[in-house]
Each structure stands twice: as C-alpha cells, then as structure tokens.
C-alpha cells in the first residue's frame, strides 16, 4: 500500500473518488444558482467539462485502486480521515472499505455513470436547467460512491439517503409539472419507509453489541468489526436482516415498496438509466452482499429475501407485459430484474447477484439510453403504439437496443444470459426449486415483453407518420455511450462463463475470497455440471421461442394481438392498472392518515380537546367563576351586609360550635 499516487495517503485517495463528483456538483450548483439569479445563460461548455470530467477522474481512480487491490483479495479499510460521529461506543469514522466488491461496484457506478454523463451532454443540451442537472447528477455520483465505499453502516446510510435525495431532485427535475414533483416526493417517501427499517436494523445491531459490552475503536458498525463479532450477532441475525431488508425493498424497489420506481420515470431519461436502472436501485443488492456474513447467519431471513425477490420479479414482469409507455416497460423490467438479483442474494448466490447487477447495469443503461434516444427523436413521445419502424431512421440506436434486448432476454452469448443463468442455477442448486420454476417463467415473460417493446418501436410500420418524419438519429455524444454500452451488453457476461459451458467462471472465483463459505460451494458442486447445462439450455430455448414469438406478433400481427387483448377483458384491465396497488395504498394508507391527521388529531384533539376544552375551557371556567363571584358585588349595601353577616356567622359558628 506504500505505492501511492503523488504521495497522497490511501484514505485520502479513496476519499477522492466520491469527493471529485462532490466538487463537480458544488461547482455546477454554484454556477447554476448564479446564472439563474442573475438571469444569465449557463456556460454550457464549462458545466459540461466539469460535469463529465469529475466522474471520469473518479473512474480512473477506481481503476487505479483496482490495480492496487490485486494482492490482498479481501481488501482493507482505510484509516479514518476523521471521526464523523463519536459518542461513547458509538463511533462512525469517515473511512472507506476497499475490496473487490466495492471496487467492482465503484467501477460500474463511475464507468456507467461517466457514460451517462457524456450522453446527457447531448440529451440535455437544450434544457434551461443544464447546470442544475449536472450538479444533481454529480451529487448523485458522490452519494452513490459514499454508499459503495463507506466502511461502516452509518456511512453507507449517508450514501443511501444521499442517493435518495438526488433521486428526489432528479425525478422532480422539471418541477413545474406537478405530477413530476409528486413522483419525486413519492420516491423519497417510499424510500424513507425503507430507510426506517434500515435505521432500526442498524440500531438493533449497535444496541445488541453495545449491551454485550463490546467495543472497537473503529465503531461497532464498521463492516470489518461486524464480521469480527459475527458470532455475537447470531441471536439477532434474523430481525436485523429483515429490518435491513426493508431498507433494501425500498431502495431496490421490491414488493411492497416498488411503487415509486415506475413513477420515477418522470425524470430525464439519462437519470432513469443511471439511477433507476444501473446504480441506485441496486444499492439494496449491494448492501445485502456487503452484509452477506450477517445474512448467512439467518436462513429465515434469506428465505424471505429470496421469496420477495422472485415474487417481485414475476409480479413486475406481468405488469410489464401490458404497459404501453416505453419507459414504464423498462421500469417494470428493472423491478423484475432487481427481483432476480434479490432472489440471488436470497439464495446465497451473492457473486451471481453482483454479476447480474453488473450486466444489468450495462444492458439496462443501454436500453434506457436507447429509449432516451428514441424519445428524443420522437419529440418527447413515449407511447410505443405511436412509434414503429424506427429501425431505419436510427440505426445506432436500433442495433444497440437490439443487443441489449437480447441480453436482457437471456439469450446466449449476450451478457444477461450468463448472469441470469448463474442466479437461476445457483437457486436451483440450493434447493429453491419452486422459486426456480417461477424464475424460469419470469425469464420467458421478460423475453416476451422486451421483444414486444422492441418490435413495436423499431420493427413493423411507422404508426404515426408525422412523428416518424421528424425522427432522426441522435448526436455523437449520445450514440457513443450507446455504442459503448452496447458492446458491454454483449461482452459483459463473458467474464463469468461457467465451467459447465467450458468457461472458467472467473467472476465467481474472483469473488470467492469475499463470499467464501464452504457450505454453499458444496451444495453447488454436488449438483454437477450436467444438470446445470441442461437447465441452461432449457431456459435458452424457452426464451428464444418467446422472443421470436413476440417479435413476429408485434411487428406483423398487431391486429390479432389487439383482439386477443380485448378478449382478456378484466384480467388485462387489472394488470394494466398495475394491480391497483397505488390505489390500494392511497385508499388504505395515505387517505386515512391525512384524514386522521387533519380531522382527528388537529381539528379535534388539538383545537377542540386541548385548546378549546382544556385551555380555553379552563380560562372560561375561571372567567365564569369570576362572573359568578362578581354577582355578589350587586352594588346594594344590603347584599353586602347580608354576605358579611353570612361570613361572620360562618366564622363565629366555626369557632364556637
């Protein structure tokens, strides 16, 4: 570790990774504010340079660190820059965890992030809030990198909340549309519900360890320390893991807290690509992988995680089947894919989940950027039934999109195939047969709806001539990232070709030192390569068929499809309305809560009971008493004399009798 860049200490060096985007964010924020309040045009080149350069530098630093991290596989925790919070045995140092997990995640974040920053140069070029946009985006990268590299749970939580805030700001980026602002708020609030669980999980760990009298100069919530005290956490592992998982369901849009993600598509499309597809939403997966040693202590929690993950995958895939908004389809597919990842970590296939996380980042970012390109070309139109035949107008977009659709559908040899297959196989191998079955089903659905989308947008005939006329390919700043991501969507999976397919399973092995535990290995090994191969081929056949079917159906037999849809009737209606989950939430939670707050708590309890009855009631009673006593003061001497006599007699009586 002595071999450092320019003699900067390792802690500072790692700190630079998030700090660079932070600086970029601050600069851009400042520029945005000054220009906005002085009503001057934004210096777009300057903003662009700052905005793009900082993530790129971060990416470079990650890569540099990667080169350092080769020797010790498990990684290290940097010495704290300073102790952020330090009260008694509660210590949260500002230090960073560098290991293969964080480095890979960091690389994905900064890499994909950089590409999307570049892409945004073109996409946002005409927007008034250009500088503000880059400020937010840079802030997001900062938060995400803190989340990734933070050495302890509180620091992870900093990033966790930070990305939530940026997501809020970016979803509501065009804030003068109330619906968009509302979507941002919804995202934040739903995430907060998850964070509630996350917080409690953290406190439970802390209070448990603290009550046991354990302490550590690096703080009890540092990952290294947690791993050290793993044995002491055995008793509370299940509640802790479940609580933390609540956080993950919020952030990674799992049942039942997934509702914010479809709405989050209100943000600019690159944002959807970066935050709501590639990086932020995978934070839950990352967190569970980070705390794998804790989760493996609790089979119950793992089972819950796996079930929730698979349920989400299936559920979201069903909804995605009938969506007509290009971004909504992608959003539900994201939820579905996240479900896979969560299922992956739930069955203990941490490396497979991370693998899928990575490949998903590539192809989903590519899909989103592609859809952005389409939307850009269609002057903001997002309805797939108004598109069609765009293949010829936008070749780069078409090809990259196609590659990514193949990848997400799980067709070999594209990236998605390997990662999804790894998850399904390992799930099957660890005995989750039913869940595997659902996963199998879902993969088919995925292939179907993705190809449906693809066919509707790019194949067939243009359905809206006017829009079609004006459609055009996007500028280089947009197509270049698309192309790069497209390439990654193809080759991204090759790092993890399993041995069953005559590969070397690099990815799995690379992570083995981190997620090392014998039991899991043993289970997988026991099943043998033959079965693995068989299942892989079955899945492949299943998805290829469905892909072709969807392509044919939606490029050529659209009319028949519509008739079919009409026959489906009510079922379709339910699915199209996303199973009415939003409505149910509104009816069961939001409205009762506001009603109770307004009518019961405020207007009744506060104003009527406490204020009117108790406070003013007391005052009025006092006033009334005063009035009553004032009646004595009639002004007539006789009355006075009488009362005097009464008082006197009472007194005499008291003394004498």
């Amino acid at each position, binding site marked *: 570790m002595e071999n450092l860049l320019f003699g900067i200490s390792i802690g500072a060096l790692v700190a630079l990774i998030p700090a660079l985007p932070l600086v970029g964010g601050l600069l851009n924020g400042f520029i945005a*504010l000054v220009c*906005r*309040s002085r009503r001057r045009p934004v210096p777009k080149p300057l903003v662009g340079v700052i905005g793009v350069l900082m993530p790129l530098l971060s990416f470079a630093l990650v890569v540099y660190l990667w080169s350092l991290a080769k020797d010790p596989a498990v990684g290290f925790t940097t010495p704290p820059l*300073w*102790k*952020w*919070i*330090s*009260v*008694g045995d*509660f210590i949260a140092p500002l230090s960073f965890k560098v290991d293969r997990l964080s480095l890979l995640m960091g690389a994905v974040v900064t890499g994909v992030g950089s590409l999307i920053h570049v892409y945004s140069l073109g996409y946002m070029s005409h927007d008034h809030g250009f500088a503000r946009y880059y400020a937010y985006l840079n802030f997001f990268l900062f938060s995400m990198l803190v989340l990734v590299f933070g050495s302890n749970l*509180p620091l992870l*939580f*900093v990033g966790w*909340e*930070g990305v939530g*805030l940026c997501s*809020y700001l970016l979803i*509501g980026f065009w*804030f*003068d*549309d*109330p619906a968009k*602002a*509302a979507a*941002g*708020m919804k995202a*934040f*609030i739903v995430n*907060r*519900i998850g*964070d*509630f669980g996350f*917080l*409690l999980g*953290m*406190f*439970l760990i*802390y*209070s448990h360890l*603290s*009550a046991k009298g354990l302490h550590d100069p690096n703080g009890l919530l540092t990952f290294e320390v947690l791993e050290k005290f793993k044995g002491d956490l055995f008793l509370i592992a299940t509640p802790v893991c479940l609580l933390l998982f609540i956080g993950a369901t919020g952030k990674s849009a799992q049942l039942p807290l997934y509702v914010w993600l479809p709405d989050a598509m209100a943000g600019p499309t690159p944002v959807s690509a970066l935050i709501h597809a590639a990086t932020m939403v995978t934070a839950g997966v990352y967190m569970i992988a980070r705390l794998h040693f804790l989760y493996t202590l609790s089979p119950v929690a793992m089972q819950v995680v796996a079930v929730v993950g698979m349920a989400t995958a299936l559920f979201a895939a069903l909804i995605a089947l009938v969506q007509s908004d290009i971004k909504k389809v992608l959003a539900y597919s994201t939820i579905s894919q996240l479900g896979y990842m969560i299922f992956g970590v739930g069955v203990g296939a941490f490396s497979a989940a991370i693998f899928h996380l990575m490949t998903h980042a590539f192809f989903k970012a590519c899909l989103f950027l592609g859809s952005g390109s389409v939307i850009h070309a269609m002057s903001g139109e997002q309805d797939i039934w108004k598109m069609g035949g765009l293949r010829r107008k936008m070749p780069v977009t078409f090809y990259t999109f196609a590659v990514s659709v193949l990848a997400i559908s799980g067709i070999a040899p594209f990236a998605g195939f390997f990662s999804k297959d790894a998850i399904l196989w390992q799930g099957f191998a660890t005995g989750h047969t039913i869940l595997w079955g659902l996963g199998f089903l879902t993969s088919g659905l995925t292939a179907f709806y993705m190809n449906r989308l693809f066919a509707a947008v790019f194949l067939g005939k243009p359905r809206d001539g006017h829009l079609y006329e004006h459609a055009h390919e996007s500028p280089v700043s947009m197509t270049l990232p698309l192309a790069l991501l497209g390439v990654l969507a193809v080759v991204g999976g090759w790092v993890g070709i399993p041995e069953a397919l005559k590969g070397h399973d690099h990815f799995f092995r690379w992570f083995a030192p981190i997620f090392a535990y014998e039991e899991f290995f043993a289970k997988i090994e026991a099943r043998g390569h033959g079965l693995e191969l068989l299942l892989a081929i079955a899945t492949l056949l299943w998805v290829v068929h469905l892909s072709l079917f969807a392509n044919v159906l939606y490029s050529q037999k659209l009319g028949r499809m519509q008739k079919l849809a009409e026959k489906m009737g009510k079922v379709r209606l339910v699915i199209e309305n996303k199973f009415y989950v939003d409505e149910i939430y509104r009816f069961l939670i939001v409205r009762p*809560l*506001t009603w*109770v*707050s*307004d009518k019961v*708590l*405020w207007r009744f*309890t*506060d104003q009527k009971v*406490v*204020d009117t009855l*108790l*406070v003013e009631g007391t*005052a009025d009673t006092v006033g009334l008493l005063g009035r009553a006593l004032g009646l004595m003061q009639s002004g007539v001497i006789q009355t006075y004399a009488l009362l005097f006599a009464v008082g006197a007699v009472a007194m005499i009586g008291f003394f004498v009798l």
Partner: protein
Amino acid sequence: MNSLLTATIFSPMLGVLLLALVPRGRETAMRAVALVVSLLPLFLSVVLFARFRGTGEFEFQEIVPWLQGYQVDYRIGVDGFSLPLIVLTAILVPLVVLQSWKDYEGRVRGFLIFLLVLETGLIGVFCALDLFLFYVFWEAMLVPMYFLIGGWGGERRIYAAIKFVLYTMVGSLLMLAAILYLYFAGGHSFNVTSLYGLNIPQNAQYFLFGAFALAFAIKVPLFPFHTCLPDAHVEAPTGGSVLLAGVLLKMGTYGFLRFAMPLFPEASSVFLPAISILAVIGIIYGSLVSMVQPDLKKLVAYTSVAHLGFVMLGIMSLTPQGVMGASLQMLNHGVSTGALFLLVGMIYERRHTRQIAAFGGLATPMPLFAVLFLIVTVSSIALPLTNGFVGEFLILAGSFKANPITASLAATGVILGAVAMLWMVKKVFFGPVTSEENKTLTDLSFREVALMIPLIVLIFWIGIGPGFLTRKMEKSVTKFIERTTWHPSIGQR
C-alpha cells in the same frame, strides 16, 4: 478576565441604553446600533467557546452573594450543555436584527430593545447555576417575549401573547414552589451543584419533579402542553418566532438536563417511561398534524413539536448517545427551524400571507430562495451530512438501547416528518406558477442571503464534523448520566 460570562449576559443591555439615546426617527442608526451591539455577545460567546475546556464541571464560574437572609447567590457558569446554546442565541440575535432591517418602520426602537433584553434573559437562563437566579431569568424573559409577540405579531397576536405568558406561568410558578421546597430541604441553598445528589424523600421527589417537569414540558413543549406553541409561533413576528423556536423551546429541554432530572434521579427513573411515551406521541403527533397545516408557520411549529419530541426522547434514554444526540439536536433545531422561520419571514414580507395555498411554483421566480429553503428542509428532515441527521441518529441509537419499542415508534417520525416537509415544499415551490402575484416575486436580496449563510454553514458544519461540539460536550453528558442514573439498591450515589 474572569467576568467574561457576566459580560456576555449583560452586553446586550448596553444596546438597550444606546438605543434609548438614539434620537427619534433615526431608524437606520437604531438598527445599526442593535446589530453592532448584538455582535458583542456573539464575539464574547465565541471566545468563551474557544476557551472552554469541556471538563464536565462548570467553567467560567462567578459567584457573588446576592440576597442575604436567604442564601441566594449570583452564581453563573457554563458546561457542555449550556455553552452551545449560548452561542446559538448569540448567533441568532444579529440575524434577527438583519432580517428585520426593512420592517417595523416607526416602531423599530421597541422591537430592538425587547430583542436585546430577551437576549440577556436567554443567555442568563443558560448560565444560571443558582435556582433563584435561574428562575429570575426564566420569568424575566417572558416580558420581552410577550411584548415581541403582542406588539409586532400577526392578527391574533394578543391572544397568542397572553396564551404564551399564561401557559408558561402555570408551569413556572409551580416550579417556583418546588424550588422553594428544595431550598428548605437542601440545607438552605439554591446552589444547583450542591443540590445535586441531595437525599430527598421519595414522595417529595415525585411532586418536585412533577413541578419542574411541568414547567419545562410546557416550554418544550411536550405533547399535551403544546398548543400555545403553534399560536405563539404563528403570531409572533419573524424574529420572535426565530428566537422562540431557536432558543426558547430549548429552555425546556435544558431545564430537564440541568435541573429536573439530575436533581431528582429517583423520580426521574419513575417518570421516565411516561415522558418517553409523551415524547414519542409528540413526534408522531407533531409530524402528522404538521402534514395537514395550511399555514407555513404553523406547519413549522408542529414539526418543532416533533423535533423537540426527539430531544426529549434522547434525554430520557439516559445513554451517552441519546443525551448527546439530544443536546446536539437542541442546537440543530435552533439552527434549522430558526432558518426556516427566517425564510418564511422573507416570503411573508413579499406576499403578506403564509397560506401554503397562496403559493405554488415559487422555485421559478425565486430560485435562490428555493435552494436555501430546500437545504434547510433537508436539514430539518435529518438527511445525512446535515446537522439534523447527526442529532436524530444519535438520539435514536441511544434510545434504541434504552427501549427499542419507543425508539422504533419514534423512528416512524423520520418518515412522517419527511412527508410533512416535502409535501409543503412541493406545494410551495413546485408545479406551475399559478398566481399572478407570485410571478413577479423578486428573489432574495444580498442581505437576505448573507444572513442565511451562517446558518447554512452551521447546518453542514455540524452535519459533517460534529466533533468540535461533541468533544466539548462529552464530559458533561457523562456527568449528567452519572447524576441522573438512580441505583435502587444503593439508594442515591
């Protein structure tokens, strides 16, 4: 200089004298005088803070015999709990002077005089180590506050002012009775330090604690005693609200820290669960009610109820984290809510309304304002790297150790508080600009931005590096817990 603390307390009075001398009509001169004079205690308190060693004992003590016949001394000193609050007070007052720079034409002198008198009272409350002296400051501060609300407030200002005074007096006079009892029970002394660890019979402790707690609970305000707060906040002038929320409420929580709990550890241990529950109710209740408020100030006022609920919860946890969090949160709430009130005041100045419904899309005409508001909101809903997070996080961590159930319930406040604040932000700042009046609003002036900057800096400073505070407070926190923890087996320490 060993009368530094006295100088800090009474330096604002210099301004009162000078203000009385400024000839009628020279209002800018008055404002300037007030501003310059109010910087004096700020400077002194910063010096104090720098010199403060954080030993856990009372530092900068000054003792002068005062009332003979009764052992009343002018005894002042500061520890880790009080000093930050003094600094906070000293920071907020100049900001209030600046904020009101354009207001109250023709009535400035009175406003500034009462403001400065209030400052003396507030700093005095935090310095007093003699119960009698404490009570004097505690009550004396009512008078200027009463005038500030009543004289420079909104429509129902008189109702609010009287309600505020009466509410406070109910509690504080009962506290006076308790103080007197303590005097006779404690060997004829009002000296807090010598009263700590006094052996008071159990039943008496209950009543005494009750009297103290009531006075402080009203000030905090704890759940059922909170209804004077929204009224006072809403009707007070901006400066009044800032100090009310920023400092006055802390007098209640400070009272618990300094007096009610360490003086009566046994009673505290008995009442602790009840107060914790009230605090939790306050958190949830405050958040829920604030969610549906139509008036900006009222909304902020109810979130204050929730925030102070957190503070109380932290104190009641009797863990280092909880108490530290609470005392940080006292500060944070002062900064954030003070800032919020300043901002609301700025928009009120422009539109003369605080109804949320009257706004919408303000981010378009007033971007600077929106950004500042958002930053403060974020601090108020305790996002990490802002001050609010450090406080709330520590409180929850500490109280979770003490009682997981109440802490979990309190943590729902994290969600509900965010709902309330963000909903308001959404309704005020986002969406299209609907009203014509809002389209022509001017953004913040240099003065207005300048006066927000110290608070913004504090928000992030405490959020990122709270060590400068926690280091100085740590010993006081342990001392507090040591004094308050009651061991039934060995009786009192």
